[in-house]
């Protein structure tokens, strides 16, 4: 051990420690996300801790003085304001407890620092009625115990922190025994591991700050966290499982032999049957070796690096894990792409603020690639897609799953629905609020699509003869008629016009503006309160689309 000691912790050192914690969490973020199965398995614990810690550090940096109390108060305030997710809220309480204990101090002795960790753990427990053991709370309490014990032995600030990190790691390793759901998923608690990473980060930063290498400070198993969780450069290796029937050697010998051949080795069984679970870099060699021990059955080999990648990519595509975390502003930008048919419609959608339109052609049938390209083109991380047709929905969903941006689909079934949604679009709103408003806005519009039947048939249970006009409303044939105006007038008698003010007719490729004007005049006669509007949409398939808002 070096003779350099850290007898007191001042504000600047606390800031450095927090910076170290942030760097460490940033590096381990994916690992932490990967572990997240409790309380809700949404794989965002690492991201939440990182964002909360960023907010804490930001305020710690601008604290009014360099006193340790003032810096801790800043961190507590930042964490409170920037708390994200369950783990973030818990972390904010930890900082809050710490700052209370350090309040007013210019610098803290080892004992004062240890007590602040203890107060932090107590504060964390005070904010929940029924604490779950085997979580971040347990880890905080065990770390604090270790810290107090080290301070009582007369250790300096570093040895207090070292004891806290060591006890945290031990507590993390025990979490699967305390919380069955963790054991089931074969993971340790994500939040608890996150806290361990934070303490280790603080320790690293402080020990390098006073000039001795971290190598002396962290015992091997602490440097990377639990072995199974580290992401070695060569990858995660292969998760290999098999059963050995009629083993040729005694069980204990086989167990010993296999344990030396990989990580996370689990060998259970008896003299007749041995079940093996092991992580190895060389599955082929291992299996070849296993065949010399007995009959190998039920062999299963999985590439864990790939599993890990799949999970993180899923999270990125679901938007729970921003692809670029450093750029917070970009992560909140929102853009819209819309599938349209017809030049007129394309122009209308652009004029109302859509970032990119995809021309679905006459029949509204764009490829997934078209949609994907449009999403890519938009200069925003969050992209809302308006399919404007039921048949386009699937392609949009495929594009969503392929895109590395955060894509949300608002299920608009016609272009007027898309337009109604766009009216509610405001660029400064948060994505979730936007989705809410836009989805609601769709309900305010009633859409009637009209086309002539090209052959006699029965559609949606209604008999239609060739040449007849069908008025379609959300998959139902509302009315049929000899002419467009007849079908329109009939349908208007069937839909609710309560609270509606505007009736817009979009004239399609095969429509005629003059015919639309005649229809409008007829509607005006019958419903004088409605305001009428005619737009050239050039859309295919439907010569007239009527939207009532």
């Amino acid at each position, binding site marked *: 051990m070096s003779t350099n000691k850290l007898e007191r912790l001042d504000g600047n050192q606390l800031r450095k420690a927090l910076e170290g914690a942030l760097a460490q969490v940033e590096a381990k973020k994916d690992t932490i996300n990967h572990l997240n199965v409790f*309380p*809700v398995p*949404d794989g965002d614990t690492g991201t939440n801790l990182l964002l909360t810690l960023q907010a804490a550090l930001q305020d710690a940096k601008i604290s009014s003085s360099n006193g340790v109390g003032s810096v801790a108060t800043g961190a507590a305030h930042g964490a*409170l*304001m920037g*708390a*994200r*997710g*369950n783990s*973030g*809220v*818990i972390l*904010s*309480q930890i900082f*809050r407890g710490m700052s209370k204990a350090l309040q007013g101090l210019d610098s803290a002795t080892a004992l004062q620092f240890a007590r602040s960790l203890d107060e932090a753990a107590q504060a964390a427990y*005070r*904010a*929940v*009625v*029924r604490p*779950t053991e085997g979580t971040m709370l347990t880890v905080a309490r065990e770390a604090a115990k270790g810290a107090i014990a080290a301070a009582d032995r007369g250790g300096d600030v570093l040895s207090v922190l070292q004891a806290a990190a060591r006890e945290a790691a031990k507590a993390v390793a025990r979490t699967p025994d305390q919380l069955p759901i963790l054991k089931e998923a074969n993971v340790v608690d994500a939040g608890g591991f996150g806290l361990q990473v934070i303490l280790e980060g603080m320790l690293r930063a402080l020990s390098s700050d006073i000039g001795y290498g971290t190598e002396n400070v962290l015992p091997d198993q602490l440097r990377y966290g639990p072995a199974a969780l580290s992401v070695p450069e060569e990858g995660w290796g292969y998760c290999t499982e098999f059963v050995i029937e009629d083993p040729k050697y005694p069980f204990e010998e086989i167990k010993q032999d296999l344990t030396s051949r990989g990580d996370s080795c689990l060998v259970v069984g008896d003299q007749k049957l041995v079940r093996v679970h092991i992580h190895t870099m060389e599955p082929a060699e291992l299996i070849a070796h296993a065949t010399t021990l007995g009959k190998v059955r039920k062999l299963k080999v999985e590439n864990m690096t790939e599993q890990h990648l799949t999970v993180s990519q899923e999270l990125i595509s679901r938007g729970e894990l921003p692809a670029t975390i450093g750029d917070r502003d970009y992560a909140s930008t929102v853009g819209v792409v819309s599938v349209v048919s017809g030049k007129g419609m394309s122009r209308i959608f652009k004029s109302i603020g859509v970032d990119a339109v995809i021309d679905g052609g006459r029949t509204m049938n764009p490829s997934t690639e078209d949609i994907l390209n449009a999403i890519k083109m938009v200069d925003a991380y969050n992209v809302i897609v308006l399919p404007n047709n039921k048949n386009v929905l699937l392609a949009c969903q495929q594009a969503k799953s392929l895109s590395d941006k955060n894509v949300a689909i608002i299920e608009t079934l016609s272009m007027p629905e898309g337009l109604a949604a766009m009216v509610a679009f405001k660029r400064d709103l948060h994505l979730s609020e936007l989705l809410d408003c836009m989805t609601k806005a769709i309900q305010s519009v009633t859409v009637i699509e009209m086309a002539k039947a090209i052959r006699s048939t029965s559609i949606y249970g209604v008999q239609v003869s060739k040449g007849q006009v069908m008025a379609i409303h959300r998959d139902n044939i509302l009315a049929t008629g000899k002419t467009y105006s007849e079908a329109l007038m009939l349908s208007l008698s069937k839909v609710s016009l309560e609270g509606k003010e505007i009736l817009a007719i979009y004239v399609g490729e095969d429509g005629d503006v003059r015919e639309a004007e005649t229809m409008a005049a007829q509607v005006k006669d019958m419903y004088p309160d409605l305001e009428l509007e005619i737009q050239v949409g050039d859309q295919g398939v439907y010569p007239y689309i009527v939207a009532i808002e």
Partner: protein
Amino acid sequence: MRHAGAKLRSVLEQKGAFSGKIEIMPSVIGHIASHAALGCYGVMGLESHGLLDRFQSLLESMPCPKGVHVRAYPDHLEIDLHVIIKYGTRISEVANNLISAVKFEVGRATGLDDIRVNVYIEGVQKDEDIR
């Protein structure tokens, strides 16, 4: 709880095994929600709100737990939670965590997917209040 019944029935019908119905009482959902809520970080308690609430729990044979209301609709389930939150936590975040925890637990127990959770903050609890 028509929805839960309908969903399950369709599964059973597919298997050719349908011979009855399953009904989950709102109070059962209420208890699951209450349990999930009280395990949620930052939530200090559930609070009955107003006289009407107390009257109702007297009248109903199987009342929902305090501060929890469950309404079943044909296509979704709506749960109201009246909660006390820890002073010094970010209320919006605790409420969001609460919503996702309750949705997750109720969904896991019942198999329903359209669950809407409304959170009403009825008060905050300070440290001094417990001591």
